[in-house]
């Protein structure tokens, strides 16, 4: 990547790319993310994810939002059309954390975002 200017993407645009539906906090889609982490292991997420990034996951329990809160993750997108528990959405709303869901698989989601210039959390900046 070129020095200085890193690729950033508004959640609005990310939603289009992943053909995702917004589950809550749709008024915060002007937030920007720089990196993406795809994982179903919360400890992995906590170990590697950078602040201000997007989490792609197949898990839908409220701990996903808790994990995102602790690690300062901007937004979470569930893959394979997963619908989270009502409690998960409630917790995210209280934290003003946008939740999205896409019908795409984890692989396809990551691939599309990578192609658009977003990078993974474990690459050095």
């Amino acid at each position: 990547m070129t020095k200085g200017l890193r690729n950033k993407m508004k959640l609005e645009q990310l939603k289009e790319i992943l053909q995702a539906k917004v589950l809550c906090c749709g008024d915060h889609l002007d937030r920007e993310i720089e990196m993406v982490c795809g994982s179903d292991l919360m400890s992995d997420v906590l170990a590697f994810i950078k602040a201000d990034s997007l989490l792609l996951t197949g898990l839908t329990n409220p701990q996903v939002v808790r994990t995102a809160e602790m690690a300062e993750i901007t937004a979470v997108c569930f893959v394979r059309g997963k619908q989270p528990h009502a409690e998960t959405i409630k917790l995210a709303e209280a934290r003003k954390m946008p939740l999205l869901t896409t019908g795409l698989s984890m692989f396809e989601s990551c691939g599309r975002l990578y192609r658009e210039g977003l990078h993974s959390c474990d690459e050095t900046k």
Partner: protein
Amino acid sequence: MKPNESKPSSGADPSENSGAFAGPDSTRYTKIQELVYELKVSDAMMRNIITTTPDTSMSELREILRANRISGTPVMEGGKMVGVISIEDFIMWLGSGKADCPIKEKMTTEVDTMYANEPLVHAIGKLDKTGYGRLPVIDRQSGKLIGIITKGDIIERLLHKLEIEYHEEEIHRYRASHIFEDIIGDKVALTFQSSVKGKDFSRAGEASSGLKKTLERLGIHPQIVRRAAIASYEAEINVVIYTDGGTITASVQPDKIRIDVNDTGPGISDVDKAMQPGYSTASEWVREMGFGAGMGLVNIKKCADKMELVSTVDKGTHLRIYIDINNTQEHSKAG
């Protein structure tokens, strides 16, 4: 009819100073450059607009400009903007020595406008390109005139915003470094404790969430808060999963945060083994929740500046985490 088109009298080439804002090949984005994209025209425009009508006379215009200390006004007729009259128009008229006349004979009728929700950088570009001193601002939905924007307004808004951000940064620094200075004592610490319920996944994380908020309120550096929150959360999840409950006690001292996580659970028979990456005794229901990778303790160690784990089988586990408040360097990756 078009003296308004004259360039600003400074003589500078407008394209020159536009580079300061939007230089396409500048690789480093300064704070100002960020702000001109972030702020909207509506954030900087003047909202209480002084207007004139087409039949206001040029001699009256002088008094309007002088009394309001402005350099131009939109000209309104029947609620619609029909033109703009500026001080340049006035000077041209004065210089021509012609008799008094209504504004409509001297105003610019083909007016460039801005939408309120456009980024500020568009207004800067248009002001530079056209050489106009001011641009009327239109609400995109209603099509109504809602403000007017000048270079002066933009500069004022940017300076104000920079000052606010500088001030916030100052407060942050003050709180983080001085919170303990006003307290007298040989040993000062701020301590708060939460209990953690065992086996209750629905509330797992509440204690760490509270800890995170408190540390934020104390003005501790966000990077330190994040590390403390992640370490505390991993420990809290372990208490929920493996024990019947315990407590998390945080003690904030002038130079460090100490987090004690104590439980009266089954204990760990081999602490060294438990510390190894990938070692886990988590059952299936725990794995289904996304935990049980055997990375929790490794993670805690990575976030902490120092960590002590003492455990006795059938008695319980004591985990102590230290985080230096002043160590804001990026932490090394997990080994």
